[in-house]
């Protein structure tokens, strides 16, 4: 398998599809309906909610289904900011968040909130000291991602949770990228809000959830029916919820094994690159095991990625680009300042189906393409 972009999305597991299929074809009811087929759907939805609550150490009522990570982040941030603006208008986040958080923050700024963007060190980590220093009496929300989607660096979420205990600020974490490998318990972390998405863990696209701690009130962002206890209107995505549940249960059963596998793949990749004499450094530290962000001195990002694609290998740079607008990765810029490193780094992310042989072949392709830049060799 030459797909090494699992941080972008993952293939769905067959078990997931099989679990979902009946809810498309036979048990297609609307969970809000009063008839039997509606009740069956409702039962499946509730069962999914219970299972996913267990997945993150929450209670079922604390799980609100959404369309995915972006909606969860948006709901958490706008919902928390607007529900608490009478207590203050200051929000804290980091410079390395996903755009679903950063662009929402920019909108909050336009809406009159003040946002502090915490710096990270060269490994991509925020310090507790910087959180303490930024915290003010009028801070109402702190949002720090669990593990970075570009370099994989884990943030000290539980420790930040401790720093915030006793403060009025709500604590949100985007855990979308971490759910496949990290055992997450919202109580241990001390978070009030946590975003999750199914398609990053071999579940279906179009479903995610927001954990909302009991007692936390968010301003409603969607109006319509009474679904999700009036927190998210719209007919529920029952097959999606069932698929998400199945994917999460597979993670719970296989998590340790996956971590061991991805660590072995990362070792094999680096070992092979070393053996091939490729100059590289791994960006980030204390990483999610499935993400390896490689600094490859001398490459040019755009042609590099095209040349890998032409060789049938799917990898990526941190940020997606549209219509040829390459903006240097905001994550790498936060880590290294404006340096060549920000546009000479590529992201490799492992998933189910990647083997050591695949990774060794990947290393050979990387070596081959790197040499076209460093030796001026043309095919």
């Amino acid at each position, binding site marked *: 398998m030459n797909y090494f972009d699992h941080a972008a999305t993952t293939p769905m597991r067959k078990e997931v599809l099989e679990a979902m299929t009946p809810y498309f074809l036979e048990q297609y009811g609307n969970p809000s309906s009063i008839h039997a087929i509606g009740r069956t759907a409702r039962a499946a939805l509730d069962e999914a909610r219970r299972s996913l609550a267990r997945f993150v150490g929450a209670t079922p009522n604390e799980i609100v289904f959404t369309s995915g990570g972006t909606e969860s982040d948006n709901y958490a941030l706008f919902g928390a900011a607007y529900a608490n603006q009478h207590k203050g208008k200051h929000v804290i986040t980091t410079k390395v968040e996903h755009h679903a958080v950063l662009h929402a923050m920019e909108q909050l700024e336009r809406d009159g909130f003040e946002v502090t963007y915490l710096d990270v060190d060269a490994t991509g980590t925020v310090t507790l000291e910087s959180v303490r220093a930024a915290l003010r009496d009028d801070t109402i929300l702190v949002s720090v991602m669990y593990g970075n989607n570009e370099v994989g660096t884990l943030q000290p979420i539980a420790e930040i949770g401790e720093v915030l205990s006793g403060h009025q600020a709500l604590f949100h974490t985007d855990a979308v990228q971490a759910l496949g490998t990290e055992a997450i318990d919202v109580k241990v972390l001390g978070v009030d809000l946590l975003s999750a998405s199914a398609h990053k863990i071999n579940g279906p696209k179009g479903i995610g959830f927001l954990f909302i701690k009991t007692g936390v009130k968010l301003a409603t962002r969607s109006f319509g029916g009474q679904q999700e206890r009036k927190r998210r209107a719209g007919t529920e995505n029952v097959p999606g919820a069932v698929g998400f549940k199945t994917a999460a249960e597979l993670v719970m059963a296989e998590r340790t094994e996956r971590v061991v596998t991805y660590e072995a793949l990362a070792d094999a990749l680096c070992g092979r690159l070393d053996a091939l004499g490729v100059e590289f450094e791994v960006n980030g530290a204390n990483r999610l095991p499935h993400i390896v962000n490689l600094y490859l001195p001398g490459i040019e990002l*755009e*042609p590099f990625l*095209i*040349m890998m*694609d*032409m060789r049938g290998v799917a990898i990526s740079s941190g940020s997606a*680009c*549209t*219509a*040829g*607008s*390459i903006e240097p990765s905001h994550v790498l810029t936060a880590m290294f300042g404006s340096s060549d490193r920000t546009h000479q780094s590529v992201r490799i992310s492992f998933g189910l189906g990647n083997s050591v042989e695949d990774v060794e072949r990947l290393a050979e392709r990387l070596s081959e393409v790197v040499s*076209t830049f460093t030796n001026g060799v*043309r*095919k």
Partner: protein
Amino acid sequence: MNLRTKAPADTTVVVGMSGGVDSSVTAHLLKEQGYNVIGIFMKNWDDTDENGVCTATEDYEDVIAVANQIGIPYYAVNFEKEYWDRVFEYFLAEYRLGRTPNPDVMCNKEIKFKAFLDHALRLGADFVATGHYARVDYVDGEHRLLRGKDDNKDQTYFLNQLSQDQLARTMFPIGHMDKKDVRVIAEAAGLATAKKKDSTGICFIGERNFKEFLSEYLPSQPGAMQTLDGVVKGRHDGLMYYTLGQRHGLGIGGDGDPWFVVGKNVEANILYVGQGFHHDALYSDALLASKLSWTGAAPEGEFRATAKFRYRQQDVPVTIAPLENGEVLVKFDEPQRAITPGQAVVFYDGDTCLGGATIDEAYRNGKRLDYIG
């Protein structure tokens, strides 16, 4: 080197796809002919407006739609910096001198057939292809640049600076077709861009008001508008807004023939105007040009050919004398109207585009005309 004999299946062609119908059909035809085709969209200008809307995004959406329809991979590449440095800076510099530059000629020379071609070659491509109305062939060891078959659309004027090395790596798959046939093919293939309106004007200005655009980058210095005899006829808004032979926008009323721009004095900031389309001051019989480039081997000594002084003009007989300093003197059989400094003079031998140069000065009976200076 002639790569054109390589079998299509072994030949990789990178198509510069703009999101327009011409480059869409270009990619479609090459794919049908069995080439290994890759579509690449060039982003050369950041035109994001205050609402965050960017026409490049719309165009790239069309590239994606067409590439998926014909089944080729597509990518985007950013040449904003190269375009700014090599095309836009030149464009502004020429206007500062009171000249009328041709950014399309420069874009082909520096971006499409240099930065983009280099990019494609590095990816392992054999050729780049574009949707230009022009043709290339290979005869007697030389790659020839030929006029597009559709006389009305021929774009060799803009391609005059291409060299042998560039032509050797270039394909113009729709150059043998009429525009209307290109549309017919696009419609028959159901391409998403089949009915898309052709883009007009200079690419980075788009549909915007030219005067407004230019004023964002260059300070305008209003000054006197007068006849060559010194009779003041009004004020001009800044010399850069006017080009030789222009009629509109002068705002001179009164009796008699309409008024035209017949010259500029940049030092004194004077715009010269005269009455009548055929005003005598607009006519010259020779020009001096620089940045001379030949598509093939450089001719030796003086020779006869035809020349165009602007796009979509019938070429006329001339005598061409390359000078030792690299410039070229072009003498016309018949006097020509509004030879404009900054524009390209492009040479032809029949259907072959021989090359071209940038017009610097115009002469009448051996006397330099007061167009600029």
